């Protein structure tokens, strides 16, 4: 289990898992929902975050504020540690 999490790591994870098609050179503020992330991808994302970082997101986290960008996700993961 890793100790902290950065927006770059979230982007790398999203690419590896093929959850959303991210254009080359996206930064931490990229809008993941605009990039095609849907409710199914969100469920898979939450499962993968638990596997990778040991952080359990739940129903309260299923919002655009938390899941909307790599940066917001990374912040939530760090908070959950």
């Amino acid at each position, binding site marked *: 289990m890793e100790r902290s999490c950065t927006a770059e790591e979230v982007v790398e994870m999203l690419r590896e898992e093929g959850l959303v098609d991210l254009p080359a050179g996206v930064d931490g503020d990229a809008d993941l929902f605009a990039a095609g992330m849907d*409710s*199914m*991808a*969100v*469920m*898979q994302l939450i499962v993968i975050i638990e596997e990778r970082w040991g952080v359990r997101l*739940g*129903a309260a986290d*299923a919002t655009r504020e938390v899941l909307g960008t790599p940066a917001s996700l990374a912040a939530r993961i760090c908070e959950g540690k």
Partner: protein
Amino acid sequence: MKADVLIIGAGSAGLAAAVRAARAGARTILLERHGFAGGMGTASLVHTFCGLYLQDAETPQWSNPGTLAEEIGRRMELATGLGAVKSGRVWFLPQHPVEFAALADSMLREAGVEVLFHSELVALEPGWRARVACRGEGIDIEARAVVDASGDAVAASALGMGHMMSDSRSLQRPAYVCGVQGVAGEIDGLALAGWIIDGIRAGDLGTAATGMHFRASGRAGEVFATLDLAGMETGDYDPTDPRCLAALEATGREVAMAVVACLKRSAPGWEGAFISHWPARAGVRESRRWIGQALLTGEDVMAGRRFDDEVAVASWPLELRETHRGPRLRYPVGPAGIPRGALIAAGVDGLFMAGRCLSCDHEAQASIRVMGTCFATGDAAGKMAAASAG
């Protein structure tokens, strides 16, 4: 029985083919093993028409104007009162399976098509003679031209003619759609995803539930629940194997029951929710494909290639669903033509195909399988079949 044109299968492609052939003056028989037309759009509750419009346009523009794709699109808008919706770079039209079946009945009646429901093609000989089974009885039908709009290229299989099927691992994954009623308020897909995750954590749901998503049907309190399936419930995925199909159906129902029960307990607005209808069959995106006089490829579609002899236009991106983890979309540079030869069988006269089993490779099928494009290829195949029979 005798006909000029025999159409196998009354899905979106077969419906359009039959209406077009009959309007062109051919005596037309349409065979369908269910008790209604519409195929996946009714039997499997697939509830949006994709491929009707051009990609990237500011306003919805018909990709096959003047064909049955436009006509069915317009009549569906009137039936539901709903218009085209833009999602990212594409437009689609919400449709309701109840309206679709009734609309298909009207169109077939108006065109004078002889419809044989509850009838399944079991054998076919060139020339053409078809053997159809209805309620344990065999019926023979003679026809001058045949259109295979079965979705599964059943005529190619019956004739032992050239067809292909992607290997089990790369076939587009199946999905199970059911109707849910009694849902109050708007659908918040994200919040529902959260409740499902909580249900998995609590041990009430298995991980298959992560394949579930919802769309409002446009009717008060009604929602369509779609579960993307791995297809590996009993081993390798094979949409032509009845044991595999049985497992899809049972798994779809089992997971849907558990998910709706879970949301009923947890999700605001779902307290009174219940599953109101099962589909007649689980949805199959891809099975056998024909090898015809021409073969449309994924590269053709991606390059927006046009053909001198094209008979329809493909305007939906490649929608790849080789895993049950949601779609990967590949956007072509522009609309692509579908050449005439992709709808004509090679080496035999008077045999045409349309819809998701026409002659194309796996990647091209990921675009041309959508119902808007199936209406257009059905229209074209119906026209060619009527001309060849006349």
